[in-house]
């Protein structure tokens, strides 16, 4: 049975021929349109669209690179980075209830009004609420779940030795860039370079595929300094004490390894604490031992004597008349503290006679004197890499007047940094070679430059040892159980181009043990004003205390009998009688 519809369908309906063709044409047109659109998207806009698509799941992730540590020669840490959190807000996205605001202000230890002011900057999309807070507090703020508040991990620098090593190590600014000291001079080595990579993330934000490394992170390298934290501590402690006791304006101390020129300790006073920025000011920041110069006074005397002996002008026993304790050079008068009579060259050093010194120096051509100063590194930066090293002042010899040649022989009219002074003494500890000073630990023996013969070095060394004997200027520099050599310096301070009558710079440079020198220590106190001001009274005791500890720390064998050495204690003999 046929349905009525089929019955109708059998009826042929004649359509106009044009309509079918038109439909066909429209369809083809539509197809062409689609094809063109497809070609357009596929061909011309392909890159753009693919980018758009990728942006939905592909992300660039930063890979952090830590700043390197700074350690002492034994690997003890002097500076290290530790993560902290910085809290920031997006003022356009933030919604905060009064209760949350109160909690936030408590956690951040900030005024509610201050927070309000910051998050109400409508036009901005990023504002720091507080930088560098401890991670635990950041956790608790995170737990408040305030929309529009987020965190950023930053690294803060910590300095475990505090002010003790501040002048060498320096500090970084809030953006982790070195500002002073080794942090600045070695910034390129210490700083890490952030890396980044492209990854795919799923809808929950988990990384599901590593696509490519865009830039590998380059972690900062550690810097191993030549400092010994133990000696550094002792040096700092004793200097601080001495500056306080003698009411000095400032002070510096440098300890060098006598054989390699490595800096074992270096500190100054006044000083700052690198862990608290508020203690930093331009006075305290100065690493005086390296960047300030002063007229050293008698601590320079061994050098003209060395060159005079080297040139054969004198020998240690050549005698000079220093009576009556004054000596006229041109229109100026050179003075000794008192009339010291006839002195041998060795005694000139031992009792530090200016008159004797000038007589020795004037027997030399100016060029010879200039050469010994120049060859021992005065007038040139010491080359440690520390930012802002001083050159000091050593004027060319062809412009010297006789009186200048005279004063220069006992350390006036020439200015040096304490580091230069300490380094110059390496010629006496190494048998005539000037060692370069370094702040970095040296693994291999360093190249040195010969300045005087080892015979001369030994002869001058003997004179320097005499200076620490009872008849010398620095008996207070002695160390129990060791032979000590050194030279005191007491210089009138130059104020507005004139020597001040009552202001002094007291210094002492020396080394021990004499039989096999291991440590050179140079001490300088600026304007000691508690009555005492002679280098032998002010600076030498500091030298002695630091040297005693340094030799003990370095396990240096004794080379002299200690004054109170006892072979066996009574208790022990009692025991053995037993």
């Amino acid at each position, binding site marked *: 049975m046929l349905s009525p519809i089929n019955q109708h369908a059998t009826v042929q309906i004649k359509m106009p021929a044009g309509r079918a063709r038109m439909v066909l044409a429209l369809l083809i047109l539509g197809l062409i349109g689609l094809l063109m659109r497809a070609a357009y998207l596929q061909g011309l806009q392909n890159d753009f669209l693919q980018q758009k698509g990728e942006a939905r799941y592909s992300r660039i992730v930063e890979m952090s690179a*830590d700043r390197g*540590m700074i350690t002492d020669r034994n690997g*003890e*840490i002097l500076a*290290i*980075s*530790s*993560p902290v959190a910085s809290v920031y807000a997006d003022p356009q996205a933030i919604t905060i209830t009064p209760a949350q605001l109160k909690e936030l202000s408590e956690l951040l230890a900030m005024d509610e009004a201050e927070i309000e002011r910051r998050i109400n900057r409508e036009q901005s999309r990023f504002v720091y609420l507080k930088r560098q807070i401890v991670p635990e507090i950041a956790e608790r703020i995170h737990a408040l779940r305030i929309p529009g508040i987020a965190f950023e991990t930053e690294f803060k620098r*910590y300095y*475990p*030795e*505090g002010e*003790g090593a501040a002048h060498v190590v320096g500090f970084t600014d809030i953006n982790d860039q070195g500002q002073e000291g080794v942090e600045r001079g070695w910034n390129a080595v210490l700083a890490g370079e952030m890396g980044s990579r492209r990854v795919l993330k*799923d809808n929950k934000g*988990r*990384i*599901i*595929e*590593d696509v490519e490394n865009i830039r590998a992170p380059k972690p900062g390298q550690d810097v191993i300094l030549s400092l010994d*934290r*133990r000696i550094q*501590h*002792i040096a700092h*402690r004793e200097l601080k004490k001495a500056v306080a006791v003698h009411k000095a304006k400032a002070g510096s101390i440098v300890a060098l390894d006598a054989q390699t020129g490595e800096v074992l300790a270096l500190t100054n006073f006044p000083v700052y604490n690198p862990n608290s920025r508020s203690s930093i000011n331009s006075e305290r920041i100065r690493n005086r031992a390296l960047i300030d110069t002063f007229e050293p006074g008698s601590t320079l005397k061994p050098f003209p004597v060395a060159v005079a002996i080297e040139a054969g002008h004198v020998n240690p026993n050549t005698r000079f008349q220093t009576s009556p304790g004054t000596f006229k050079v041109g229109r100026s008068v050179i003075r000794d503290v008192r009339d010291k009579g006839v002195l041998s060259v060795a005694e000139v050093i031992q009792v530090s006679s200016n008159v004797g010194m000038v007589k020795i120096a004037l027997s030399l051509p100016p060029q010879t004197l200039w050469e010994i100063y120049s060859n021992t590194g005065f007038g040139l930066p010491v080359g440690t890499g520390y930012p802002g090293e001083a050159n000091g002042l050593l004027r060319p010899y062809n412009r010297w007047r006789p009186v200048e040649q005279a004063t220069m022989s006992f350390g006036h009219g020439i200015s040096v940094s304490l580091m230069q002074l300490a380094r110059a003494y390496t010629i006496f500890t190494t048998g005539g070679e000037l060692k370069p000073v370094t702040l970095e630990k040296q693994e291999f023996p360093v190249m040195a430059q010969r300045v005087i013969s080892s015979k001369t070095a030994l002869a001058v060394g003997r004179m320097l040892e005499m200076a620490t004997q009872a008849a010398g200027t620095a008996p207070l520099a002695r160390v*129990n*159980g060791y032979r000590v050599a050194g030279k005191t310096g007491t210089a009138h301070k130059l104020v507005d181009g004139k020597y001040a009558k009552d202001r002094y710079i007291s210094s002492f440079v020396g080394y021990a043990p004499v039989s096999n020198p291991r440590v050179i220590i140079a001490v300088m106190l600026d304007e000691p004003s508690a009555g005492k001001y002679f280098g032998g009274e002010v600076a030498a005791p500091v030298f002695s205390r630091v040297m005693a500890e340094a030799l003990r720390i370095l396990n240096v064998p*004794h080379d002299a009998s*200690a*004054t*109170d*050495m*006892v*072979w*066996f*204690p009574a208790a022990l*003999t009692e025991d*053995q*009688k037993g």
Partner: protein
Amino acid sequence: MILFRFNLILIALLVICALGVVTIQHEARKLNMAWENERKTARKLQIEWGKLQLEQSTLIARRQIEYAAREQLNMEIPSANSVQIISAKKADESRWVVLDNAKSY
């Protein structure tokens, strides 16, 4: 007919391979995620290590130790008078002297 069967087999193979690709991809992503987590842990441990180093370094600061020894334990550095330096060679000699003396008692 043979051709039709061959096609069927190919289709089956294709489906198996496709499923394999999906499974492996999933597996790879899971492993990647695990690796990512390990990386995070490593980073965390590295940071922790840094913190511990800092802590150790702060605890062994000489001024702290010195303070503790002086103030809390009432210790002091012996004066030069109370220190006795024994040289190995001389000590050996004097030991025999002492022993000789001991015998005579």
